[in-house]
């Protein structure tokens, strides 16, 4: 009888393992996601797009649809991308509006106690949400819907200011839970394990404020003839990322044209340059350059203190070294127009986001390790085989949560140049990669070109019609 029981148990577990193989619970996310990047790199998106189309009903739909939205937009399927992002945003709204004690959320949290964090439905990090709004804004811009674009940028701003508040509440909550369960979450205890991310983490103050988004927002306001609003968002971008010279020039230019004398004096001194005089009837070209991919999370073994002593859990980290981004060179037919400058380091945002969540995760991982340990001990007391099975199960099910939006770029850069009205051919060069595009410049208007460099391929698209 006992043996029959154990056999049944084994079969059940195996079933569970295979049934779950398609999700991230037993197969880590990067192994699935690598094909998304390959699809973009090879300009062969159709297959993964239809695969991802089937993920609209799964628990991790937020994650899959973010990837889909990005892949669709990069392959020129702007309408599909708009629908995908819309669906993610709807999902995020649904999640936010859920009851304080929600049956489905509690169920997922409880299930995660016996498997791993991957069984908790993915909910987009604040930095990812900000990107969704920004990319949606760019999508709308490509469709010539300026007003819809301004709405998305407003929503992006809202997410950023809200995340700030939420972040402090969540940290307090995690620390309270740690105190209750007597789990040591002090920084020094774990700092050695997260050292690989330190360089990236140190580049930003928090994970949710994104200068690239504020810059895009300012740009869209400028296109909508709202220089005042544009000025405010450029200044916000500058506060987050002060070193971008193109952005500095934008702030000076608008400070001057809006008659912000004090600002003008202060910024001129700070940047060591004067506001350029804007020649009448000139147009502007803005290049948004997105380079590489944000790193994927990896797994380390992290000892956490529990009621049963130190137990080792699988914990996600970023292991990639931080590298200074290389610029994109922009030429017209005869000479170099300039080089792009970094405005957001997405790796830094992602690493910082993980670090911000670490306290809460350590608490959850410690509780889970203890629960699994207890299950294993109980099973071992019943009979040896059950004990071994439980141990085996714990080993297989112990997977770090390595999910994140991996088709995001590694960094983004900008360039802005005044150009004469008319048709121009722009050439872009980054390392071995080159690409050109014809753009139309109109007087007193902005022409936006996005260049995405995947490392093996350069995708150039004219955002403005």
């Amino acid at each position: 009888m006992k043996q029959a029981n154990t056999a049944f148990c084994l079969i059940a577990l195996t079933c569970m393992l295979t049934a779950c193989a398609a999700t991230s619970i037993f197969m880590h996310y990067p192994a699935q996601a690598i094909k998304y990047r390959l699809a973009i790199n090879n300009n062969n998106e159709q297959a993964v797009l239809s695969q991802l189309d089937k993920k609209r009903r799964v628990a991790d739909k937020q994650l899959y649809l973010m990837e889909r939205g990005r892949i669709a937009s990069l392959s020129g399927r702007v309408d599909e991308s708009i629908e995908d992002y819309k669906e993610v945003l709807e999902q995020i709204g649904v999640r936010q509006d859920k009851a304080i004690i929600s049956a489905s959320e509690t169920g997922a949290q409880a299930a995660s106690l016996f498997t791993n964090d991957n069984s908790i439905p993915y909910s987009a990090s604040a930095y990812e949400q900000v990107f969704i709004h920004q990319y949606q804004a760019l999508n709308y811009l490509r469709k010539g819907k300026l007003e819809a674009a301004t709405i998305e940028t407003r929503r992006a701003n809202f997410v950023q200011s809200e995340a700030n508040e939420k972040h402090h509440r969540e940290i307090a909550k995690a620390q309270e839970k740690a105190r209750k369960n007597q789990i040591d979450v002090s920084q020094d205890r774990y700092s050695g394990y997260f050292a690989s991310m330190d360089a990236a983490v140190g580049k930003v103050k928090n994970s949710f404020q994104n200068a690239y988004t504020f810059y895009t927002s300012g740009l869209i306001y400028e296109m909508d003839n709202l220089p005042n609003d544009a000025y405010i968002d450029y200044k916000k971008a500058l506060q987050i990322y002060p070193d971008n010279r193109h952005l500095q020039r934008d702030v000076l230019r608008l400070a001057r044209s809006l008659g912000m004398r004090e600002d003008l004096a202060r910024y001129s001194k700070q940047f060591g340059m004067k506001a350029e005089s804007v020649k009448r009837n000139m147009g502007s070209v803005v290049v948004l350059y997105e380079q590489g991919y944000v790193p994927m999370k990896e797994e380390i073994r992290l000892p956490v203190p529990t009621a049963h002593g130190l137990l080792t859990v699988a914990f996600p980290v970023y292991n990639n070294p931080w590298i200074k981004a290389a610029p994109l060179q922009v030429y017209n037919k005869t000479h170099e127009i300039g080089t792009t400058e970094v405005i957001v380091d997405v790796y830094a945002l992602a690493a910082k986001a993980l670090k911000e969540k670490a306290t809460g995760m350590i608490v959850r991982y410690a509780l889970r390790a203890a629960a699994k340990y207890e299950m294993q001990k109980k099973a071992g007391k019943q009979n040896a085989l059950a004990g071994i099975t439980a141990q085996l199960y714990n080993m297989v099910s112990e997977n770090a949560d390595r999910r994140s939006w991996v088709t995001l770029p590694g960094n983004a850069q900008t360039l802005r140049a005044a150009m004469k009205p008319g048709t121009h051919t722009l050439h872009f060069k980054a390392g071995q990669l080159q690409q050109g595009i014809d753009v139309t410049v109109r007087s007193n208007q902005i022409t936006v070109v996005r260049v995405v460099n995947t490392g093996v391929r350069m995708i150039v698209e004219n955002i403005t019609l």
Partner: protein
Amino acid sequence: MKYVLMGLLASTLLMTGCASVQYGDATATETTTIDFGSTDLQITAEKMVDSLLSFPPIVQVTATRRPVMFVDTIKNKSMEHIDTESITDSISTKVLRSGKFRFVDMTKVAEVRKQLDYQANSGMVNENKAMQMGRQVGAEYMLYGNLSSIVKRAGSTKDVYYKFTMKLMHIESGVLEWQDEKEIRKVKKKSLFGG
């Protein structure tokens, strides 16, 4: 076994009972979500039209004649994708139905031009019966506005404030003849238990 069967039967009934379509009252208060909804649209349109038509100078102007008006789009400065054209439509429908104003539709200019061009130049239309170019009546007034919102969320409470502003400008003189605003505030609290 009996209970299982009964349970099955009950759940089957429940499932079939769920799928039903009913007609509702189009003007009933709708609070499905906190987003800008049909009720908001209706009360804004109503309030604006009432305000416009009862404003003394407007009453005076429209007492003896029906001035021509055109409705510009309403600028959406909120954080939601709201079909502002639908609000404009509701408002212009009400104003038109009041019989105080006449309207020109600026969204159809291209089509009208095409039609007039066809009548004048295609050779297909009897010259005596063709509509003539250059005889349209210019609008005397322009109706326009914007919609803005402030959203705050604290803990389990979400507060949305909408402000809808409309203006009527006399086009020739540039004078604002009328302006009004309608504010809407909605609060949503999360429930403690749920799915």
